[in-house]
């Protein structure tokens, strides 16, 4: 009798272990099945082009565009240093670095601006009754069904010297001369925020919508002020949305070039323009590819640093 009991319990624990293993295997399989469409699609049509770009960046430019199949590091060297047409020596090439830093600065500014405007907006939508939220979301995205170029032209009408804002300000006697906004960095800044605002609002909304009211209630019960509730309860809970929104604004903002060109007046290059002209009139595909990869590396490093930082933070708190 006793021995049978033991047998049963032994086989039971074996079965349990087996079931766990099967369950884990099933989970892994399900996971990869779920991932496969996105990974195959992007692997084929995202990573293959990326590899082509990588190869291009190590070749020589072909005459009149394209590439010549000869290995060369020129594209990368050109980025850092350039044989100066003024004194014939290799010197640090500040042009590209200054274009990169301006683009990063503007895009970062726009990301912060979009967050400051987008967070309250997303919060406002999330605190509407459940059956109205989709309507408000739609209201935010609707303007973007209209082409960016056309919207930008319409924006010109508002911020130009004789535009709506300046005419309004002057007729109210607030200013005497028009404030020059158009064709300045301010205009680019406004334009970028405008273009990417929904990219901030939508992820924020997705993460704020499920905000647990009980946590807020608890905070108020502990006599927290509205501001403390915002900074110590709501913001930490919305973190995934904030991260997603910032990524979606910052990275596309870096590559943007229609907005800077039309609103900024096109007198200064942004990274996006710099890279684009390499595939156009500059006829230097390898350099365009190299610049794009360098940009990608910068973005990746920034993201990695962020991931490291947040992992560390999570560790110390946990």
């Amino acid at each position, binding site marked *: 009798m006793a021995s049978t009991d033991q047998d049963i319990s032994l086989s039971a624990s074996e079965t349990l272990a087996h079931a766990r293993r099967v369950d884990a295997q099933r989970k892994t399989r399900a996971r990869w099945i779920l991932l496969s469409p996105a990974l195959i699609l992007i692997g084929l049509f995202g990573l293959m082009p990326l590899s082509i770009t990588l190869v291009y960046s190590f070749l020589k430019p072909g*005459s009149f565009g394209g590439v010549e199949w000869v290995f060369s590091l020129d594209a990368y060297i050109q980025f850092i240093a350039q044989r100066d047409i003024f004194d014939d020596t290799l010197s640090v090439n500040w042009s590209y670095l200054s274009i990169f830093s301006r683009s990063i600065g503007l895009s970062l500014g726009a990301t912060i601006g979009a967050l400051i405007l987008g967070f309250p907006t997303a919060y406002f939508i999330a605190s509407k009754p459940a059956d109205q939220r989709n309507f408000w979301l739609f209201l935010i995205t609707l303007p973007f069904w209209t082409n960016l170029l056309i919207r930008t032209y319409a924006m010109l009408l508002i911020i130009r*010297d004789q535009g709506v804002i300046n005419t309004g300000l002057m007729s109210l006697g607030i200013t005497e001369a028009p404030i020059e906004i158009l064709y300045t960095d301010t205009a680019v800044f406004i334009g970028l925020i405008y273009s990417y605002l929904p990219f901030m609002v939508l992820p924020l909304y997705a993460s704020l919508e499920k905000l647990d009211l009980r946590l807020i209630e608890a905070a108020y019960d502990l006599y927290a002020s509205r501001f403390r509730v915002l900074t110590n309860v709501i913001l930490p809970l919305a973190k995934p949305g904030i991260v997603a929104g910032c990524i979606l604004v910052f990275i596309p903002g870096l590559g943007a070039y229609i907005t800077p060109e039309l609103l900024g007046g096109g*007198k200064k290059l942004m990274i996006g323009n710099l890279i684009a*002209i390499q595939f156009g009139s500059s006829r230097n595909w390898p350099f365009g590819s190299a610049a794009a990869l360098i940009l990608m590396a910068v973005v990746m490093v920034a993201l990695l640093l962020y991931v490291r930082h947040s992992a560390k933070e999570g560790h110390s708190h946990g």
Partner: protein
Amino acid sequence: MKHKLLGFSAACGVALCSSGAVAEGELHIYNWGNYTSPELIEKFEQEFDIAVTLDGYDSNETMLAKVQQGNTGYDIVVPGDYMIAIMIEQGLLEDIDANTMENFGNVDPKWVDVYWDPGREYSVPYQWGTTSFVVDSEVYSGDINTLGLIFDPPAELQGRINMLNDMNDVINAGLRYLGYPRCNSNEDELRELTALLLEAKTHWRTMDYSTIEKLTSGDVDLSQNWNGASMRARAQRPTLVYAYPKEGFTGWMDNVAVLKDAPNLENAKLFVNYIMDPENAALISNFARYANGIMGSEPFMDPEMTEAPEIVMPADAPAPDFVPPCDQSVVDFYNVIWTRLKQ
């Protein structure tokens, strides 16, 4: 008001009913955006029972990049003069013996022996024009026929200038002002050019292609511009005058050519011959607002065009300067200058 509403609803009706009948053949045209007369296409479709698709590009370089990769599916392209030269050299165009076609006799002889296609084996004229600049004569009343207005502007034009956002157009204008040759790789001369451009840029407000909007809205009073666009802008701002600077200005011609792997070669040839007919050439001009290089087309053109000072050059103006494609070494220099200018 009522009349307009009627027209509007009629148009809606037409739009709903017009489903294309099945045609014999096909033709795929790849032209600059908004540059092809819809009337011409419709007429061609009906006459030959060919279904035409029309797509637009924004620059010669976009078109070249696509064609270089092959298998675009397009039959007809309309490259600029220097781009024709490049594409012939790279073997991207079909030799269609354009000069033996029925309507070739209509081509103005001055457009036959051109640098980009001597004797016209591959291409025929589509539209041609000039790239100079346009000034508001009310803002500046002095002599306008000098590039000095761009590179050493008088006080009233400072900060009121738009330049095209085009490396070649800006650099070539600078070279002309300094009296140096185009496709220049002389380092001393380029150094001087860079200094000139950097100094002049402080007086420029913008560098952009949308010249018509900039001029009509009053954002700028002078803009480097194409002649046809200048005529359009003058319709909105009558005081604009197109300049023929004594230092010279760019001439250009867009040409119809057939791609090497064209799926509908015969239809494409039909189309090439078709647009050399004076009446059809005039249709293109009336839409795109440039001259066409086909003799006998004037009677079919809008009178506004045959008299426009932007299209009809004054006798004392210098000959337009057609600039061939430069070597890569020159382009590399230009890139450095351009990046420095816009850094």
